């Protein structure tokens, strides 16, 4: 199971509760189901030389928030 709360006040805070994560920024819950993999990126802190990407969620645009859950 997963839960995503995408904070709408502009602070870019994420809460998630999903399968295993490959995560660079965000909050991970260790009690994930083994068969699920999820990723959440807060791309707002990305520089133009550090690429974050996993399984379809790619932070391509610098200084903008990119987030997602997938497996």
């Amino acid at each position, binding site marked *: 199971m997963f839960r995503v709360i*995408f904070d709408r*006040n*502009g602070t870019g805070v994420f809460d998630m509760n999903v399968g295993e994560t490959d995560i660079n920024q965000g909050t991970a819950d260790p009690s994930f189901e083994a068969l*699920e993999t999820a990723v959440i990126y807060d791309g707002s802190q990305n520089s133009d*030389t550090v690429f974050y990407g996993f399984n379809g969620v790619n932070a391509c645009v*610098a200084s*903008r928030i*990119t987030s997602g859950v*997938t*497996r």
Partner: protein
Amino acid sequence: MRSSFRVMDAKSGEILGRVSRTGDEEVSRLSFSHNDPVQLRSSLPQDDEKYRIELWVGEEGSEFKAVIVDMFNVVGSYDGARTSYDISSYGTFIEDAPVFCLNDAGEVVEGVIEISGGGAYLCVFDEDTTGNEPYFMYFTEGSKGFLSVPVVGDVAVVQQEEGEREVTVRYFTEGDDV
């Protein structure tokens, strides 16, 4: 019902478009269908707003795959080995991020973002793709999923490529609503 898309205005909550497809009949308020891409914009907005697309399937169900495409109307140059597109006018980008383009055979080619010596952001492909335009692609797949991505290109498209789930999509400007 086999599938449906809803496209919502973020601030008002109004459903801008909806398509649903049954076994024999397709009902659409916009000119799209399950198997075709849903175009959310066709040109670059002439304002200072920052735009975003959110896409999600919130409940467990059958397997699906949904994609967001952010495409740039730029002309590429081919040097005999590689094709480069300068997308610097659209913003700043992350080096080595994946970009995609079709080649003359209609096949999807993957490239990367490179930063030139002059500081330009280039979409680079290892073959001649000058007949087509580059794009970013984001996807979520599985039994449920969520994406929230900035859109900075000229054309924004969403599509459920696999599956028959109801996928909710919002296209909106960033601000208090993000």
